[in-house]
């Protein structure tokens, strides 16, 4: 845990793009093609980065544990809304004055949030859940929701000026605060049996034992809680079933590689 690993040695692949290695002819995976088509993206740099992301996720088994993955590429709302796992589901509905660009989507701190339409209680029943983000900027004040439902007493990922936090109500240790830095990757996961943790951009983990369900019972939102809206820039977001700590750390590396391929890593 916590080791920065070169993508080629970590994933056992030589060459710049795994697509070339696996496919032999360099063609894109069907899932990549579906995403690029839905998002109206033709830029080959983005196409290659997304294809590598798809293939890394598939080869590591992470793909099958995800419900919604937002690569946030394409520089406009129509592309940023698109779910890589199934481009026809859980498109983000953007409210307020987001700034969409090649580096991601930047909240204005006044009225911006994204609604995924994914209600965990309905769409992924059971106690298992993971979620995470890749942030290019730090929070400036107080607490903001990064990912979570609209109700307070449920599982959520949020950020403060002192650290990103995974919150689980009704536990003795209800808040797990990651160590800094807050930029880059932050992910949290719970299995409803004995594991609840948060993992930060350096692979550092805080964890506790939890069997608490507390699944959000409302549409998962990005960037706001009640009347508080974040002014941070998002460059990736995901919601899925439980990932163990090794899987989450691997996903962190995969997403770091993705951001590096797009020259927007922090």
């Amino acid at each position: 845990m916590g080791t920065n690993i070169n993508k080629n040695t970590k994933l056992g692949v030589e060459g710049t793009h795994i697509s070339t290695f696996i496919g032999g002819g360099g063609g894109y995976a069907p899932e990549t093609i579906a995403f690029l088509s839905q998002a109206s993206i033709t830029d080959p740099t983005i196409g290659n980065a997304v294809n590598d992301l798809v293939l890394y996720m598939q080869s590591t088994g992470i793909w099958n544990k995800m419900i919604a993955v937002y690569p946030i590429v394409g520089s406009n709302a129509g592309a940023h809304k698109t779910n890589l796992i199934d481009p026809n589901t859980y498109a983000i509905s953007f409210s307020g004055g987001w700034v969409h660009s090649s580096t991601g989507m930047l909240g204005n701190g006044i009225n911006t949030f994204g609604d995924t339409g994914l209600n965990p209680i309905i769409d992924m029943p059971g106690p298992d859940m993971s979620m995470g983000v890749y942030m290019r900027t730090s929070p400036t004040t107080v607490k903001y929701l990064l990912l979570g439902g609209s109700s307070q007493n449920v599982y959520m990922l949020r950020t403060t000026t002192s650290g990103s936090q995974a919150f689980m109500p009704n536990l003795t240790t209800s808040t797990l605060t990651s160590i800094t830095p807050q930029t880059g990757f932050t992910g949290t996961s719970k299995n409803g049996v004995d594991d609840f943790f948060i993992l930060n951009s350096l692979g550092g983990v805080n964890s506790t034992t939890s069997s608490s369900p507390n699944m959000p019972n409302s549409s998962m939102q990005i960037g706001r809680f009640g009347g508080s809206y974040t002014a941070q820039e998002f460059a990736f977001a995901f919601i899925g079933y439980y990932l163990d700590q090794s899987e989450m750390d691997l996903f962190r590396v995969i997403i770091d590689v993705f951001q590096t391929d797009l020259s927007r890593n922090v």
Partner: protein
Amino acid sequence: MIVAFLSEAEKDQLVGQEFAPFEYFNPVQDIDDNWIISMEEVNNCINPTFMWVKDLPEIDYIPKPEEPIE
């Protein structure tokens, strides 16, 4: 921070409406309960029905106190 000021009636017209593809107005209230939208919504509005937002008066934005999360 500068924002665009809305009357109650103007706010009602904008709620739930698209200002650009896949992007929706989100009027909120400032500390004095004035309804406002951000300048990003104003500047990026391309919906012909709502081009009048570009003529809204501008005011300084002072947010309501933050809601505690816990």
